[in-house]
């Protein structure tokens, strides 16, 4: 997904003199090509994220479309107040890119687990939140959002090369990856691959046929899409993010805004830090976010619901 981001960034920068890239001393080698082509529109501020956001905010007020790059929690939580006061309150045109969403850097430890970022960032007014689930989404989202006004948060991570069902996609709307009539899975990020595997197996073994949509744009939400959820019996959200304030919570809030009452199964990290580490697949397993666990949770959700009817 990072390659797709970089490809889009190069293309957009080539066409737009106002694009400026700032890194907080991260992205070894990945910006070589960018620097070769646009060395005057690149700045490494050093390991100083607070300063990075302050500088980016001011530069954006001078007409630059600034992209700030960092990994995990450094470009978000470390400088949260700068994002709130300097960037969001001033409606600065900056795109905050965090590479390594969720457990991408699983084995590096809790400091590198980006598992509360979506909730924290989306709670700030004036910020749009994007979490692409595939390479295609990452590419198209990058191209689109750099030109959107205001502060954008873009969380990227490693993804498999899954293709959406439709060739033409609008990154501001939910994107369909699987069609089924028994319910719907809403997800964001690389964990889409686990969702697809779960849905395929549930269909094969239990004849449960689920749709899957990627909520690439978590904020602002697409009203028309959420209105249609009224007719969906089973709604499941899956995220590599803490249970509180994440994708599931955002879905509940959106439905509440539309006055739609629905029971949703939220599959997420259970409000804990993981001191026991491993790679992303291991972390998903140990946090019950792998395909097998997702299937079990969904089956349980279906069975519990049936009991109530």
């Amino acid at each position: 997904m990072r390659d797709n981001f970089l490809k889009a960034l190069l293309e957009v920068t080539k066409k737009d003199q106002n694009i400026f890239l700032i890194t907080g001393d991260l992205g070894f080698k990945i910006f070589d090509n960018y620097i070769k082509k646009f060395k005057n529109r690149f700045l490494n501020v050093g390991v100083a994220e607070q300063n990075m956001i302050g500088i980016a905010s001011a530069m954006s007020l001078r007409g630059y479309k600034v992209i700030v790059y960092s990994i995990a929690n450094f470009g978000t939580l470390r400088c949260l107040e700068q994002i709130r006061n300097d960037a969001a309150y001033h409606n600065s045109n900056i795109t905050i890119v965090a590479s390594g969403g969720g457990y991408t850097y699983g084995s590096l430890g809790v400091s590198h687990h980006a598992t509360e970022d979506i909730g924290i960032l989306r709670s700030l007014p004036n910020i749009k939140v994007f979490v692409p689930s595939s390479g295609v989404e990452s590419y198209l989202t990058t191209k689109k959002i750099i030109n959107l006004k205001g502060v954008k948060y873009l969380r990227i991570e490693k993804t498999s090369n899954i293709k959406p069902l439709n060739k033409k996609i609008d990154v501001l709307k939910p994107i369909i990856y699987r069609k089924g009539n028994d319910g719907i899975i809403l997800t964001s990020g690389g964990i889409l691959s686990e969702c697809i595997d779960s849905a395929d197996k549930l269909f094969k073994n239990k004849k449960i046929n689920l749709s899957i949509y990627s909520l690439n744009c978590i904020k602002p939400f697409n009203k028309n899409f959420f209105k249609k959820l009224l007719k969906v019996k089973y709604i499941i959200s899956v995220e590599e993010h803490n249970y509180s304030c994440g994708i599931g919570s955002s879905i509940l809030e959106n439905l509440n805004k539309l006055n739609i009452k629905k029971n949703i199964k939220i599959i997420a990290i259970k409000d804990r830090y993981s001191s026991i580490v491993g790679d992303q697949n291991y972390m998903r397993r140990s946090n019950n976010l792998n395909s097998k666990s997702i299937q079990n949770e969904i089956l349980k959700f279906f069975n519990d619901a049936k009991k109530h009817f």
Partner: protein
Amino acid sequence: MISRKFAKKLRIETLKMTHHGRSSHIGSILSIIDIVAVLYCRILKLRPGNLKNNDRNRFILSKGHAGAAVYAALAFLGFFSKKKLMSHCKNGSNLSGHISHINLPGVEFSTGSLGHGLSVGCGFAFASKLKKEKSKTFVLLSDGECNEGSTWEAAMFAGHHKLKNLVAIIDYNKLQSLTTTTKTLNLEPFKKKWESFGWDCKLIDGHNHKILEKNFSTKSKNKPKCFIASTIKGKGVSFMENKVLWHYRSPNILELKKALEEVKNAR
């Protein structure tokens, strides 16, 4: 405009504002009045008519709690109506206690949490440098604000990039929120700190208009400039001077009357 006369007007106005708005920080406000007066009268050349000029000087009040001083200066210069000043901190006002830019032309940047302004100043100065503009960016910080690590991130950045179009002014009244800077977190050797971060640094009298104007208008060589301006918290009102209490207290009607008399009668 004569900056000393302007300073007197600002003192009178901000005393009234903090009285009517029952707001804090009059001590911090009076501390920077002379600096603000010299900047707006003699240095910045900011007027309502040239706000759209990109190559203009910029001023960021990093110690946002003294926002009343800048609001008053801007109102006197015609950026918005003077009447508005008396709404300071009242219900429904956009003149918040900590400086805010929304619908207030002339306010370059909103602050209030300490340690943000110098980074923002770096951003403006860096952008001006890229655009090869002549303008300068001035940032006014409090001394207590230099406790913040982010201030030093910005200081290191400005020094490294030799931002000669950036001027930091520190309101060194040596009192912070609870007690003296020395007792809280000693800043000394203060000048040496800035110099070691790659700045030209000078100690000046923060209430002497001639000295302020002369120093603020000198050209920078190849370094950002820092002025450690020695000031008195509550300057101009005898019973407020050097008293931490006036970081918080709003003058009541009797105190206002007494303060205004002192300010009006001062030379």
